[in-house]
Each structure stands twice: as structure tokens, then as C-alpha cells.
């Protein structure tokens, strides 16, 4: 689903979670680290805000496979 978060680059700042208007991105604790994940990926509007605002350029957009075919 659209935002793909590179956890190597991610600094866990939480901005993507904060600004996602569709409330798709959440933070979770995993391996003693806070990291973002897509809790409701199917509700992404592809607005691109998370990618635009990510301070560490950790987010890219990957469209769902079917949308590239139909």
C-alpha cells in the first residue's frame, strides 16, 4: 500500500503519524524501538503528505499492484 517506510532511515520522530489526515499511520513499540506502521493501509488517500514532510526522507510511495493494472 502507498507509503513505504524505510525503517533504516526513519528516526522515529512520529511526524508521519501526526499529520496523516486519514489516520492511517500509527507508532508502535517493537524491538525496544518506536516505529511507524500502517494500521489502516486501505484507507490511504495517496495524498503524499507523509513523504513530503518526512524530515529524514524515509518514505516512498508504492501504488497497490491492482491499481497499476486495471
Amino acid at each position, binding site marked *: 500500500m*502507498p507509503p513505504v517506510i524505510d525503517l533504516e532511515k526513519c528516526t522515529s520522530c512520529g511526524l508521519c503519524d*501526526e*499529520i*496523516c*489526515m*486519514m*489516520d492511517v499511520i500509527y507508532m508502535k513499540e517493537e524491538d525496544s524501538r518506536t516505529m511507524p506502521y500502517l*494500521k*489502516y493501509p*486501505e*484507507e*490511504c*488517500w*495517496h*495524498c*503524499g*503528505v507523509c*513523504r*513530503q*514532510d518526512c524530515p529524514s526522507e524515509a518514505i516512498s*510511495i*508504492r*501504488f*497497490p499492484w*491492482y*491499481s*497499476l*493494472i*486495471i
Partner: protein
Amino acid sequence: MEFSRINTDVLVIGGGLAGLNAAIAAAEKGAQVVVMDKGKIERSGSIGGGVDHLGAWLNSGPAWDTREAWLENAWRIGKGTAHLSILDATVCDELAAALDRLERLGVPLRQPDGTYLRTQAFGQPGPTTINFNGKRMKPALAKEVRRLGCRVLDRVMTVTLITQKGVVAGALGFHIRSGEPFLIEAKATIIATGSTNRITQNPRMNAFNTWQCPLDTGDGQVMAFNAGAALTNMEYMRITIVPKGFSAAGLGAFTAMGGRFLNAKGEYYMEKNYPAGNKAPRNQIVFQTLKEIQEGRGPVFIDCTHVTGFDARHLATTLGYDKDTLPDYLAQRGEDITKRPLAVDVSEGLQCGPTNETGSGVKIDRHCASTVPGLFAGGDAADHHRCVRGCVTGGFSAGKGAADYALKTNAIEIDPTPLRDAFDSFMAPLRRKTGLSYGEMEEVIGKVVSEHMAVGRTEMGLNIGFEKLKGIESHIGLLKAENFHELMRANETRSILQVAKIMNRAAEYRKESRIKPYHYRLDYSETDDQNWCGLVVVEKDGEGIRLSFDRTVHG
């Protein structure tokens, strides 16, 4: 459960483009302001990720570049779907100040050399649209809202207005993550909640892949309706043209930069069928495109292969201003629009204003006041505002109207006790362990709206559709939510269903066709200006819907 209580002069429901302009206007007038939004105001709403156009007149010399020409065009294209006097007061009076304000806040409306880049599309009388990089328009406005001291409640969904003795006195809401309940007491309340999306089946196989913002679900229109306010123009179901697999903004950019509509027979059908050709009003492009497909000349394409040089480079750039991820989509799909025509399709439907000039939603007057004291509206949720221009002018106008009212009005004492029950009814999905998800219910609503209320309406079809919507309503008590995110969605589903019912009754009432295909009655297929030039007015009548007609005249 105890509400977090806040007192204010002006409450703005919806912190999108219109809501933030409303908040700025009210704060500049000296009012205390609270803004509530389901998202975070820096990035929420239809232009949260960016926009590339603002339709304007700049008095640069030609006759088309004047306020009078814009109003004349609003009448010509709008076909009587607005009172020109209200457009004049709430849009025209505010435009020059709105452009100044945006530039002062750092929105780059001009090119680096200080000139405006202006383009023409959608039946405009000349190149009136200012083309610009609006990717940071929302952050700029949000910064100003916070600087002016407005209290911002991000991620708070408003569920109902508070009405005391026929006057709107604030609203109730909850935080979509923590569930914290809010009671806002306000002398004036502004509805700025945008249009209604997710209301039809989505041909893109994803309910949330909508042309306009899927967070806009008619919440404000429904709250206003339930508080007794009149709505108008609710029969119109708007559609656009989108790339085959991705519903996205950008049609204006394609057509403004020279895109040509092409059918499977190699004919440029808009140039053949309509005087303004590819720059025809949006409804005409959709109408002609549907005709091409239905008559066997599909699939259809937008051909930009002749666009070269600056125009080609600019088209690629501006598509990304209007929809940030559209260039990614085209690249991942392997499309090069300069090399081959792009396959396109008609979009899903949404309930919103019938044209780029005229709106739908809460019926407003010249001060953006609704028909209920204490309630105002601006932007796409107001019946005289549409698009970026309508939000930056109409939103501001609503803020001024609401502040003027609030500053000369005494607060109404509110007893929270009866409000707890009202609020509790919106929390009910949380208590259900089994039941229906919002997704399941929206699928059924979309099916009914698409089959009975979309393009090509008939009396029998609409009546059958209405009965089916009532059938869905009888299941609303089964909606379940496992957390506050799902509770927000479940309440959105309630709004969408209510808008669908209102759209249905307004569409059945209007026994003619207007702005085809946005209101296209197969049983009354002609436009009948003699009897139907004006607005269908919808009001709550007990548990039912009362309909009446508000005639419009040119001038």
C-alpha cells in the same frame, strides 16, 4: 463520562482550506476562535497535500478578467444554481483580499519573475486560473491560525451541534485516538466540512481512492440539517475524468496545458462535439465521455503527445502540485504522457456543488448565515462556494459573518445533562462486540446510490433507491467499532447515508435535468428553465424531509 468544556465566540468545524480562512477572519475581528478537525490542520482536507489552481480575475485589461465577467460566467455555466447576489457578496467582495492574504502568508501565487502564470479550462471565458505551487498552502494557513491564538483541536470529530431554543450554541465531539469527549459552547458555529465522498461504488476498487478527500463525508451538512438548517443543491452528483486506475485531481492541469480527449476510433471527440472543445465545462466533458463509452467508441484517452517544450515540462510539474503522487502513479504504471495517450475513465460520484462556480450544502445568505441563528457555513459545505476560490473567499466571509454575530450576542447557558444522551448515541458502536463494520455498510450504500441515483435517474428508480436506503438505515444500530478510529468511520458512514437520502429526495423533486450528467433524469431529460431555474431546498421535517424551491434570476 465528563466533557472537556471550552467556551468560545466562534467555533469552526472543519480545518481545511475554508475552515482556516474562516478562523483567520474571525480572529482578525477580535473573536475567540476554536477550530476542530478530524485531522491535523497543517495537512488535512482536500488540498492538504497540495493544489495547483485558483480561479480568479485580476483586472488586467481584457473584458474576461473582471468580476462582472466571472459572475456572468457563473450564471452561464452554473445555469441558475446560485444567487448572483450571494456570490457577489461572499466570493467577489473577498477575492482581492484573499489573494493578498495568501501572498502575505507565503503562498507563492506568482512565478519567480513576479508574474502570474494563468491558464484556461472548464468553460472559463479566458485564462483566468492562477497556476501555482500550492503544496504548502495548508501549512502556511495553519501557522497563521495558530499565530493568531486560535485554539486548535486536531483529531477531534464533531458529532452533533448543540441546539438550545432554536439557536445553535456549539457542538459535541470526541478525540479520534483518545476518545476524550468535548463540549464546545460557542456563540457562533461555522460548518466548513467540505463535500461528501465515499457515497458511490468506486470503480478504482478502493473505497478510499476518491477524487476529492475521503475524510469529507458530509458530517457538517448532516449536523446542520438535523439542527433545522436548510440545505440546497443536494441533488447534484459530481463526477470527473481520472486516470484508469487512480482517482486523482489533475484534469484541470491536463486540459489547461493542451490535453485532447481521444476516443478508440482516433477521433478528438470534445473538439467534434462541443464548441469549447477540450476546455468545456467539466460536466460537459463527463457527459460527452460517457456518451463515447456508451455508444461503443471507448476506451477513451487524454492525448498530450503534441504538448512539447515548456508546456510539457510544466504539465509534469503541475500535475504533482495538484496531486502529489500522480506523477509516481504514472511512472509506476509505465505511462509517459508525452509519448502516448493516457487511458482515462469517469470517476466515482460525490455529492458536492454542480459546477466549479456554484456549490451545494448549507443554504447561506450574503453574510454566510444559515437559516438557523448562530449557524454559518463556508467553503464546499456551503451552497454558494466551490473549489479553491470558493474556500479562500467564502471561508473568510463566513468567519467575518460569524464573528460579527458572536461579538454582539450573549452566550446561551448550556445544561450538559441532556447532551450526554445525545452524545452517547454516537458512541454506541463502541459497545457492540458483533455487528456490521463501516466498510460493509458503505459498500451497500454505494451499491444503492450507484444503481438508483447516479447518472440517468428515474422517478421509479429513485423511489426504489430511497426505500433501500431506509432499509440500510434500519441496520444503522448494528454498526460496531473496536476503537475510536473505527468510531469516527462509523459516524462518517451515518453521515454518508443521510446525505444519500437527502440527495435522493432532492433528485426526485427536481423534475427536469440540469448540469447533465450531474442531475440527469431520463424521464425528464431536458433542462426546463421555465420551472426549475433555481435551488431545491431541503429541510428536516420531523423524521422526514421537506422540499421547496428557491428561484434564481439573472442579475
